[in-house]
């Protein structure tokens, strides 16, 4: 891993069209500004890891049998009283 030391207000470039700026440094927290083309996705790593873990849990050994059985549900097995959000 490349390690760079930067001060508050300093920045660096990733390739030609991505710029990362250190906006603010406080004990334990750094605020980072990112300038990148729209096509570059910026996601917090722990969010991607949580999605990956959830995907793998979907048909884990423990729930697997039930999950396959659940495929047989023909009608909505779920109460409709819970709205998303």
């Amino acid at each position, binding site marked *: 891993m490349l390690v760079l030391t930067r001060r508050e207000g300093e920045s660096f470039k990733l390739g030609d069209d991505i710029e990362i700026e250190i906006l603010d440094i406080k004990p334990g927290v750094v605020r980072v500004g990112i300038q990148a083309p729209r096509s570059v*996705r910026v996601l917090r790593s722990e969010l991607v890891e949580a999605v990956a873990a959830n995907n793998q849990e979907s048909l884990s050994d423990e729930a697997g049998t039930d999950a396959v059985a*659940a495929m047989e549900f023909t009608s909505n097995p779920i109460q409709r009283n*819970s709205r998303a959000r």
Partner: protein
Amino acid sequence: MNDTMLNGRTTLPVRTPEGIPGFDESREWALERSHPEAVFCLLRPQDAPDRGILVAEPWQLAPGYEPDLPEAELERISITGPEDVELYVVVTLTPERTTVFLNLAAPIVVHRTERLARQVILDRQGWPLRHAVEARG
């Protein structure tokens, strides 16, 4: 049609050019539905058919779910309009099957005709990763 049908069971091909988190090596999948009215479908990687992801179309299970799918994400699988979009959410069941969890934070978007898919992670939209829905007793 490129789907196959056997005893009411349908299998549609799905391709994920950039993988799916947690299944990063898998590119070719089969979307299996046991019968046309089934609520849940199984997304099964061709390279690891003993694994898979349980998914569902969210509209019935999570009324009010209105994800904002960024255009840049949709373009990656050649989606140009709403008519191209087929949307699924990842389902996790508890072993007792009393509660169903829907991942509303990262729906799987499929191009209806091209069969290209990707999981779109919706950051800062407030949709939960585990939206609990109680199963009917």
